[in-house]
């Protein structure tokens, strides 16, 4: 019964003095947020730490949550900003600037083909998401895994909707070019 509550109903319950209900929100979002953080931070430990940090920040700011946006959008914004803080604090800024935020969507330099007979084309595509620029990978995950609209993604990332759409298109195009390069597209259709 409790598990069918909407995010807002859970938040109302927490604000009424039932903090243990926060477990429902944690359980609802922890896996998807963890997936997102792993793509951004490329490290399980950092991802877990940032995930915990994000949930704590969200809990402590629940009273400030404006119901104009969905909880998921608001929460993912916290997750995204926490990940950016971790990246800068870990002095990965230079690496990020050089390899990810330069918006280099050309994956043709990667020579990774399907690396074993067990790996199929779909797994290969999913693996290649990691090779996309961080923000490109993020847009792909929020769009496909979380089912967010472009408007919601643009709110999470603090960028315009046009830029969000451009990132989604570029990410798909670069993955598509890989399929064409290795002639995998027929296997997947």
């Amino acid at each position, binding site marked *: 019964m409790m598990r069918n509550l909407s995010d807002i109903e859970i938040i109302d319950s927490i604000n009424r003095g039932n903090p243990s209900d926060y*477990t429902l929100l944690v359980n609802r979002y*922890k896996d998807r947020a963890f*997936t997102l953080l792993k793509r951004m931070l490329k490290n399980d430990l950092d991802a877990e730490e940032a995930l915990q940090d994000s949930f*704590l920040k969200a809990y402590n700011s629940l009273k400030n949550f404006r119901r104009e946006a969905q909880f998921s959008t608001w929460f993912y914004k916290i997750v995204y900003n926490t990940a950016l803080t971790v990246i800068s604090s870990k002095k990965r800024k230079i690496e990020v600037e050089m390899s990810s935020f330069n918006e280099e969507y050309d994956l043709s330099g990667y020579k990774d083909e399907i690396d074993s007979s067990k790996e199929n084309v779909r797994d290969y*595509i999913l693996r290649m998401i990691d090779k996309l620029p961080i923000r490109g990978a993020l847009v792909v995950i929020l769009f496909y*895994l979380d089912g967010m609209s472009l408007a919601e993604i643009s709110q999470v990332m603090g960028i315009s909707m046009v830029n969000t759409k451009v990132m989604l298109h570029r990410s*798909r195009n670069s993955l598509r070019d890989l399929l064409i390069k290795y002639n995998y597209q027929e296997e*997947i259709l």
Partner: protein
Amino acid sequence: MNNDDLLNRYLDNELGIDELQTIKNEIEKDGKILARLKALRAVDNSLRQIKSENAPAGFTERVMKAIADSSIKVKSKVSYFFLSMISILAVGIISIFVLSVRILGIQEGGGESKPLPQYIKEYFGKNSGIWESILKNNTVMLIGSMAALLLLLSLYFTIEAHKNFKNRLNNIS
């Protein structure tokens, strides 16, 4: 608008009738565009298969424990802050009390019983010469100014520390 953009928007069902006709014409003219559309659709199909990874075991319990711990810390910090404020207030009250007793002691020594405000007025009136000489003394003025400066600085840092403390409360992580 290039073909790649049209193909992506076709995939997302965002094309109007005119644009649909345009892309259809392009595909008929150039077989490579059809190949790109097929590959794009293959990517789209694959991306729809993304599955989330499981957060580490026991994660929810750890979060809830961290929340419980942080709320205890907040409570203790708040009580410590109020304790400090109460101490400062208490010191102020005691100082006023001691001053009053001292003034009343002097008053009793004089053998007359007067209201306190009247006594203070008379006291400062009688001793105006002394106060004047003290205030005209450069060393006293210098020490007084330094003390006032130090007081203002400490007041500023106290306010800043309080602001930081409040910010930390709001952004506990």
